[in-house]
């Protein structure tokens, strides 16, 4: 048995322990590698900067607890950037868990920055109905939002909602999303294209490649992609958080994956060479 075959037949748990160590060590002792900011993130940041002082951001939260690692830092940093410029945020969720997972983190930022719930930001909770609700929020926002926030407070009692009767009243629409089919593409289809409302998105690394054509066409004014996007965003807004701190561990794990792919392929080629002389057939890979 060659070394390659031995490696291949190793109990898979050896690989797992190596992975845990490779990710854990940089978390305990970070290396502090520099992060370069990409254009998608920079455009996102600029788009938020371009909202006039006192303006309103409509924020759709379309992810569940399975993607909080990538999306929560994006949302938190967005709140920091917006609050630093006295922008208002009206948020809701088209996915049932979305409002639950963002409620505690956004409240923490709001309290820390001395903002008032209902005046500077509001969480309207879960609004079912998908793309049709998105359209309803343009036709009649209050009806689409079912007249209440997440706690059940009537919208007429919330100062931030006064005069906000349609998504057209928002200066910017942002979708933070990590579900399939893409709610961001639905917002584009039902809201942004027909009514010309500018839009930007935050998403996971997984979904970034499929959303790229809409960023490239200028329909998404900016895009945060995965934990890397969150880290770049934290860096730009000078709010180092969990995403920036995770980048070294991310680097380490990528190197591990690449080394393993390389070793696997070298081993595969070695075995093939060794077997080239042997009669064909029957040999398992």
């Amino acid at each position, binding site marked *: 048995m060659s070394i390659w075959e031995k490696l291949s037949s190793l109990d*898979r*748990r050896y690989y*797992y*322990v190596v*992975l*845990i160590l490779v*990710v854990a060590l940089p*978390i*305990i002792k*970070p290396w502090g590698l520099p992060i370069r900011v990409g254009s998608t993130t920079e455009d996102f940041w600029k788009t938020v900067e371009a909202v006039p002082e006192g303006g309103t951001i409509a924020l759709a939260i379309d992810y569940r607890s*399975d*993607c*909080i*690692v*990538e999306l929560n830092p994006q949302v938190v940093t967005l709140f920091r950037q917006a609050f630093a410029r006295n922008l208002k945020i009206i948020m809701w969720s088209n996915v*049932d*868990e979305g*409002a*639950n997972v963002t409620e505690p983190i956004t409240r923490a930022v709001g309290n820390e920055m001395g903002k008032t719930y209902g005046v500077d930001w509001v969480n*309207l*909770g*879960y*609004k*079912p109905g998908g*793309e*049709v609700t998105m*359209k309803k929020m343009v036709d009649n926002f209050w009806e689409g939002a*079912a*007249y*209440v926030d*997440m706690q*059940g407070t009537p919208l007429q009692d919330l100062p931030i909602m006064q005069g906000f009767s349609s998504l057209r009243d928002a200066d910017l629409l942002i979708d933070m999303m990590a579900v399939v089919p893409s709610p961001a*593409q639905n917002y584009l*289809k*039902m809201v942004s*294209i*027909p009514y010309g409302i500018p839009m930007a998105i935050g998403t*996971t*690394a*997984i*979904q*970034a*490649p499929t959303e790229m*054509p*809409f960023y*490239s*066409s*200028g*329909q998404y004014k900016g895009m945060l992609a*995965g*934990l*890397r996007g969150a880290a770049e965003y934290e860096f730009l807004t000078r709010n180092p958080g*969990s995403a920036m*701190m*995770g980048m070294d*561990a*991310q680097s380490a*794990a*990528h190197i591990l*994956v690449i080394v393993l792919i390389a070793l696997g392929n070298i081993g595969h080629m070695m075995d093939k060479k060794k077997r080239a002389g042997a009669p064909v057939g029957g040999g398992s890979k």
Partner: protein
Amino acid sequence: MSATLQIWLSAFFTIAIYTLVLYKDNKVFRFAETVMIGITAANGIVVTYHNYIRPVVAVDIVQQGKYLQLIPILIGLLMYTRFVRSIAWVSRIPMGFWVGVGAAYILTRNPGVFISQITASFLALNKLNNVVFVVGVISVVVYFYFTVPIRSAPMKGMTTLGKAFLLVSFGATFASTVMSRISLLLGRLQFLLQDWLRIAGV
């Protein structure tokens, strides 16, 4: 106190899930999965009820007297007939309605996205990247022609090129998926090391 308990519970559930791979399929893992299914199933109903159904009934029907709104509620309730075999077909009525509305918005609103993506591809062939981009779009579309036989040289060339573009693109998706999964693990290890064990700098 409640914050500490929360951290310990979270740590327990995190480790419980990892026993699946580090040990094997076991009861603790399945218990953790059970808790997740139960809590999320209940939460889905709770938020739909409190954030949508209750206020709509209170405002539209009770306050404003729009009694017509009772009809959609009834239509929706017909879905539950699927649990009674003899009248299960009734559940097709709401489905027929939803499918119709869904199809209507595909037919009326998807063309906007579609056409804007076509016009976004109108790039002048004055830069190498633009040429590559346009060739990429067209060759991949051609790769998905299914009624044109791949016999002629231009078709062979275009489909080969289209496949190559697809593969490079899938490479990007591959890497992105790996990244996302690693980020998830990273997030949990950050939690375990920083919030729970407190052995890493915060």
